[in-house]
């Protein structure tokens, strides 16, 4: 595929007895915004650093544009990296920082200044050439780091949790900025983060890593709606897990008996190859459970244990047969939001959105 710019095959990294990256393979398409998502210690930064050339793989290959990068030093790879702590050179000005990569390429001074100015414009920091990078705010340093990495027009831009040291509001703004720049330049971005909101909102595709393994890979909507495992379902967004037994299948859907709450959920369409009688786990997100305060209706009867108001939504923890179920209802207005603790309620689950997962 001529469109594949980065190809990672069976990548393994071991440190003594510990395996940080365990047989990870994936391909990144040219112009894509591709994210590595996972909890700390899952191997995402290690993988990124191997692509950059700062760590050598124990086994496996990394290919860029068809060329095997094994043994190629970091300074010879056509990748640029934006570091988590920005890593701006304190002994150089902003302009010298941004122009550094060009200086290494041997670009003459005049042309360098032009391009530095051009890229500072791109990141919305015109005129900052002579400033001292240590005097800039976090957000400003972030942009300078970005300009410095992009100016060499790399084949792939690597970003190692670049927004994690910024405060929340700034982070949300920078997400738009990064996405905008990526689309404008059509550069391939490989982005590492532990923040699922970031990954979901910015990426074309996400690779979920867990403990060194590739857990799942796909577009954000797929990862959210069709998690492949309990880890995926739980890491991205919130969900309720129910132990269950497959009761019967009819055509495209199956019926499952939910053990803890003695309830049979019929018509679950999203299934793994379920076998009758098999134990499995059902994942159902809080927003797909509806709730009425009338306990005479059909559904699961339970009692509200806790109500938490989130501004644009309300979450209720409802106890059903001793099991705690998380329910989300939208908005702050309407009778549903006026439900208080200790109230008796009825829950109705939407089988269309339930996921059947391996136990």
């Amino acid at each position, binding site marked *: 595929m001529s469109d594949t710019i980065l190809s990672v095959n069976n990548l393994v990294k071991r440190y003594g007895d510990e395996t940080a990256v365990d047989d990870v393979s994936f391909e990144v398409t040219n112009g894509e915004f591709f994210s590595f998502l996972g909890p700390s210690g899952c191997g995402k930064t290690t993988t990124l650093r191997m692509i950059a050339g*700062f760590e050598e793989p124990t086994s496996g290959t990394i290919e860029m544009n068809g060329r095997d990068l094994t043994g190629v030093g970091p300074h010879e790879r056509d990748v640029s990296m934006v570091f988590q702590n920005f*890593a*701006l050179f304190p*002994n150089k000005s902003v302009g010298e920082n941004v122009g*550094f990569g060009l200086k*290494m390429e041997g670009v003459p001074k005049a042309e360098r200044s032009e391009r530095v100015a051009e890229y500072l414009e791109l990141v919305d920091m015109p005129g900052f050439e002579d400033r001292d990078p240590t005097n800039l705010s976090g957000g400003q340093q972030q942009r300078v780091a970005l300009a*410095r*990495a992009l100016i060499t027009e790399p084949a792939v831009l690597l970003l190692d949790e670049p927004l994690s040291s910024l405060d929340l509001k700034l982070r949300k703004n920078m997400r738009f900025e990064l996405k905008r720049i990526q689309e404008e330049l059509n550069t391939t971005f490989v982005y590492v983060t532990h923040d699922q909101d970031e990954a979901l909102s910015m990426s074309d595709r996400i690779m979920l890593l867990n403990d060194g393994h590739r857990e799942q890979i796909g577009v954000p909507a797929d990862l959210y709606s069709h998690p492949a495992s309990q880890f995926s379902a739980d890491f991205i967004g919130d969900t309720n897990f129910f132990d269950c037994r497959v009761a019967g299948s009819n055509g495209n859907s199956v019926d499952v008996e939910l053990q803890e709450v003695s309830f049979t959920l019929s018509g679950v369409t999203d299934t793994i190859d379920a076998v009758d009688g098999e134990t499995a786990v059902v994942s159902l997100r809080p927003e797909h459970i509806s709730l009425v305060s009338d306990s005479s209706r059909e559904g699961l009867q339970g009692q509200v244990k806790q109500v938490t108001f989130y501004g644009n939504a309300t979450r209720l923890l409802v106890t059903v047969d001793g099991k705690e179920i998380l329910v989300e209802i939208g908005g702050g207005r309407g009778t549903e939001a006026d439900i208080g603790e200790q109230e008796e309620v009825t829950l109705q689950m939407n089988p269309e959105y339930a996921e059947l997962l391996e136990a």
Partner: protein
Amino acid sequence: MRLSISALLGKIEMSRGTAGRLQKGAAAAVLLFLYLPIAIVVLLSFTPEQSPTFPIPGLSLRWYEALIEDQAFLNAIVFSSKLAVVSALGSGFIGLLAAFGLVRGDFGDTWLTEDLLRILFSLPIIIPFIITGIGGLVFFNFVGIYGDFSSLVVGHIMITLPFTSLVIASGLDGLDESLEEAARNLGATQLRSYVEVTIPMITPSIIAALLFAFILSFNNFIQTFFWLSFTDQTLPVLIYGLVTRTYDPTLNAVGTVLIVLSLLITVTAERISSRILT
């Protein structure tokens, strides 16, 4: 036993003000004690009298003039300086390499851990002077360089190496390795990244290390005393010889000069080092 001391202490009540004054007073007294000898030497360097008695009848620079005219002193100052500069440079270079090895080395599974190496490098300071001094004497004699200038340099490098290596190492420690990685990522070779990023950032540490090494070498008495041949003398050894014979008031003058020099170098080195830490 413990309880009764506590009980005793409990009987003593002190107001906050008294406690504060006691602490301040004690502190001031000790500080005075520390600087009294230094003050005396400086004061007496200006006496016009031959003997170091108080009160001082007036102020005079005659001993400073005598110092400038004394050939023996001048020779010793030159010799000490030469030795100190050479030793500082040698020690600085070896210490620089060692610092990189300590901080950037990949220690993996060897028995020679970084901590062990740091202890090894600090040994010359911990082991008593008399051992290193006399041990050096017999060792240089055994090797055949006893009395040579080179033996002095070798010995002074050994004495100052703990300082240079550990000072530069601490400067390097504070340096974020991701800066070097960023440089290499942008196309700089390992060597180039050292030149563009690392060395400029540890230059203050290097300078501080060199200053410390210089002053340590210049001031050294006990080891140098045993290593010198009969032809040349360092300043401290010359001073010692004079002190053990008769009283010479020029000693106060040279002492004051040394005091000022040392304090200047120390403050400068500290200022530079602390600028790294901030």
